[in-house]
């Protein structure tokens, strides 16, 4: 795992990546199909297949434990990969380390990317860039809030 500065507390790292969404307003049959599909995606065989053929992590704890028991992480070529899980589960997740779920997240991420590029290319100080990214991100969130007024996120 990456070292942390002295005097700072280590938290679990943030999870990221693609996500699947089931939208509202569909028929009962479609929801049954969606549920079956999600079951299939989360089934142990499927979850274990992904880390075996790619470098990705298993997405359920059950699959991870099973892979540990069957010796996946001591096989040559796969050893050391459990570090990712250790890092992700280092502390129990709190509100700020649960992974990001925001309205217009893609826009916010692209603002962050651009501001970081500005910092890396020396156009702004890192602090300035991060402050600007926060300000831009908040603007986007306010817009999202207004667009979705009166709606409850599930």
């Amino acid at each position, binding site marked *: 795992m990456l070292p942390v500065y002295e005097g700072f507390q280590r938290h679990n790292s943030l999870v990221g990546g693609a996500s699947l969404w089931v939208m509202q307003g569909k028929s009962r049959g479609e929801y049954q199909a969606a549920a079956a599909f999600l079951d299939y995606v989360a089934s142990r065989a499927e979850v274990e297949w992904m880390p075996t053929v790619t470098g990705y992590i298993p997405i359920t704890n059950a699959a991870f434990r099973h892979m540990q028991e069957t010796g996946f992480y001591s096989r040559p070529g796969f050893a050391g990969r459990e570090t990712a899980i250790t890092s992700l589960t280092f502390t129990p997740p709190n509100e700020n380390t649960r992974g990001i779920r925001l309205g217009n997240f893609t*826009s916010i991420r*692209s603002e962050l990317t651009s501001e970081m590029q500005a910092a890396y290319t020396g156009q702004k100080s890192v602090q300035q860039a991060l402050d600007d990214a926060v300000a831009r991100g908040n603007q986007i969130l306010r*817009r999202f809030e207004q667009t979705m007024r009166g709606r409850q996120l599930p």
Partner: protein
Amino acid sequence: MSGKRVTFKNFWLAILLILPQLFLVFTFFYWPAGEALYWAFTLEPPFGGEQQWVGWQNFETVFADPLYWNSVKRSLLFAFSSTALAMGIGLLLASFVDRQLAGYKVYRFIYFWPYAVAAPAVGLAFRFIFAPDAGFVSAINVWFPGLWNPALDGFDAMVLIVLANAWSMVAYNFIFFLAGLQSIPRSLVEAGAMDGAGAVRRMRDLQLPLIAPTFFFLIVINITDSFVNSFGIVDITTGGGPARATDLMVFKIYSDGFKGKDYSLAAAQSLVLMLMVCALTFIQFRFVERRVHYS
């Protein structure tokens, strides 16, 4: 519009013949343009649902955003530099091909090739040619380490997309300048030569004024094209970066609308761009009329 002396009378057949075009134009041009207008005054939830009327708020947001003006500024810089470059080179090559020395047909033939290459293909080719760590231009980094890097330096990135766009536009300008120059009666140029005017003088005082209409027509076409065709080049080479140095207007509309799913903001920006393109096209129409008058 000058019409035919003799015509057919069958009204319904006439309507039937033009109906397919009208359907397409209505469905894919006027309706979307109208919808953009409506969206620009509402907040549109990305996955459907009630939109709310917000008046001018979207435009206020757009115009108050320094990053929008950044994108306008970059677009204008991009449009004017690549237009100047493409037209300058196009005119230079056309005027020398027009001298019709031995082999000029070969040049005329080959100069036109780049026109066939799709904008994203130009982008990919130029991305390789101008890559900082491989390709053709990277050699200068061997002699002057770190001098060229479009991934880190906004200026380099702008140079890269301007050159790519200019390269792909030169052919079009060349063809039109050549056609313009060749429509000047040979005898006129010869008369100028007999009066002792040299080639440069003839170009400046005789040929250039005569192809002025072509010149203005091309300015408008080039600028419009660089507004609308820039997407393919930017998307493949720089993705708007680094730090928004190449965040051109069409690319920003695409990323705000389709990546960020803020259709209202994208619609407001589309409308501004639409007005700009309309203004340019309008100038061109005015001018095309005069051009017909000239010839």
